């Protein structure tokens, strides 16, 4: 196979793989759409318990990491080995930052008993805790609607969890690419791997761009 043919096939293969990933996440998005329609108040209440500052910051981290990844691809195309290495490092750091913040968020959810399963506590949505002015933090839900917040959180953890798994795999591959880039593997014009990984990383970013408003921004004023 000629070099050009190899590059084209690899690229085609990656696009096709991303299509399968869309189908994969699609199942969860479908479930989300149905349940949000059925239990809207519960979804609102659940969404309001997420920290919007952390979420926005995470979104920014990922967008910047997509930029650094794109920089890396450009550096590889223009044979700037040092630039490529630094871009990959930056992407890794931003990715790890994202995961770090996600860990903080998950930990908070665990403490508040918002993790679905045996320890899930829906009562905090019925007897809403008061803020410092003595007003309830959010609109109280009726008990049966409050139980449906577990569905919201189930989807929250399933979707962001699956996303995080893809990030972890991506960061793992980034380390491998970093090691190889440092040895000069991608500075000779053979950049297909970097390009195709870039596609994967951008896809993971785009999934988050959908997840963020759907999970964090329900009925925020």
């Amino acid at each position: 196979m000629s070099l050009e043919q190899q590059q084209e096939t690899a690229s085609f293969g990656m696009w096709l793989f991303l299509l399968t990933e869309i189908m994969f996440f699609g199942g969860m998005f479908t479930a989300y759409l149905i349940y949000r329609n059925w239990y809207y108040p519960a979804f609102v209440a659940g969404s309001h318990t997420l920290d919007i500052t952390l979420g926005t910051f995470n979104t920014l981290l990922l967008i910047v990491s997509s930029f650094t990844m794109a920089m890396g691809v450009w550096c590889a195309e223009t044979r700037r080995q040092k630039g490529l290495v630094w871009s990959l490092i930056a992407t890794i750091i931003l990715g790890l930052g994202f995961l770090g913040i996600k860990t903080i968020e998950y930990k908070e959810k665990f403490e508040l008993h918002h993790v679905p399963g045996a320890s899930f506590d829906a009562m905090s949505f019925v007897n809403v805790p008061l803020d410092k002015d003595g007003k309830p933090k959010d609109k109280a839900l009726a008990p049966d609607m409050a139980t449906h917040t577990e569905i919201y959180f189930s989807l929250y953890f399933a979707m962001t969890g699956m996303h995080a798994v893809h990030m972890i795999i991506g960061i793992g591959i980034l380390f491998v690419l970093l090691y190889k880039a440092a040895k000069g593997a991608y500075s000779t014009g053979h950049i297909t791997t970097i390009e195709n990984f870039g596609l994967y990383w951008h896809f993971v970013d785009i999934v988050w761009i959908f997840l963020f408003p759907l999970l964090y921004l329900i009925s925020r004023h």
Partner: protein
Amino acid sequence: MNHISPVLWQYLVKWLTNFAVIPPEASTIAPQVDALLIFMTLVSLVGLTLVALIITTFCIMYRREKSPVATQIEGSTLLEATWTIIPLGLFLIMFVWGSVLYFRIYTPPTNAMNIYIVGKQWMWKAEHPGGQHEINSLHVPIGKPVQLTLISQDVFHSFSIPAFRVKREAIPGRYTTVWFEATKTGTYHLFCTQYCGTAHSAMIGDIVVQTPEEYKLWLSSSTSGVSLAQNGERLFASLSCGACHNGQPDARGPNLGHVFGSKLTLTTGQNVLVDEAYLRQAILNPSAHITQGFAPIMPTYQGQISEEGLISLVEYIKALNLNERIQQTTNTTELLPEVPEGPKAKSAATAAQGVAKP
């Protein structure tokens, strides 16, 4: 079946039943389903024979000894069109015919008597409105439309009566319905056809179709003495529903008299028809549907009430439509009078205001 001589049809059905290829036809819809099945079988036989004939004929005519050299043929648009359009046409006929049957089977007539079926691992419970309870059997009268309202207490089950050609899934969490009108007395198979665990094959029973007299006898001998609606009235009191649903103008909860079959406007502006499914949801999941003008304060009874309890409450609320409380408390052995459901119920109820007639 009017198109085929009735004599021929009877012969065909008898022959098929005696040779044990189809179950007995014991409901009004069974012959209709069988007609379509026979049509499809004929079409299939013709199609299969055609294909077999074509293959066999060509194999004989063009075997290598007789035809040493093949003639390369690209194709024939005419033939392609023919064998696209004819099968499509036949399939579309079956589609329309079958859809009509499907609508018929799953659209109960408004005058059907309602029996509740609760499926659980691994038995069927039938709840008659007059308070008769059956396990793994179902007694029905001949010649009367019977609606089954099904629900499962645990996993998916499926209520199947091959002799009636009807089957419906019993789903956990919501009601499904099916109806039939039995046409032949006798005992027929009842099967659970949705795999549900260990004793799935044991979840079978009998459908007993009786003459009206036999059925009346059975009703009176099997009653528990408490009709479903009466049991519902008892539950209504013990769960303190009346605290809010007391029928007073300033009550915290909507008036339940005549609510069944009416159209409600919810706080979201949506209009809903109040049927059994709605009532069940309203008891278990009240904040999903709040009647306009009322606050979302109704507690949920999820976990506090069984499916049988829910059925009793639903029947009680239905009975409120007819001011039949008096009749309910004294009569548990008669077939309930045929009641038009839906919007008609309201006008019928208004007409029957105050005085109940057997």
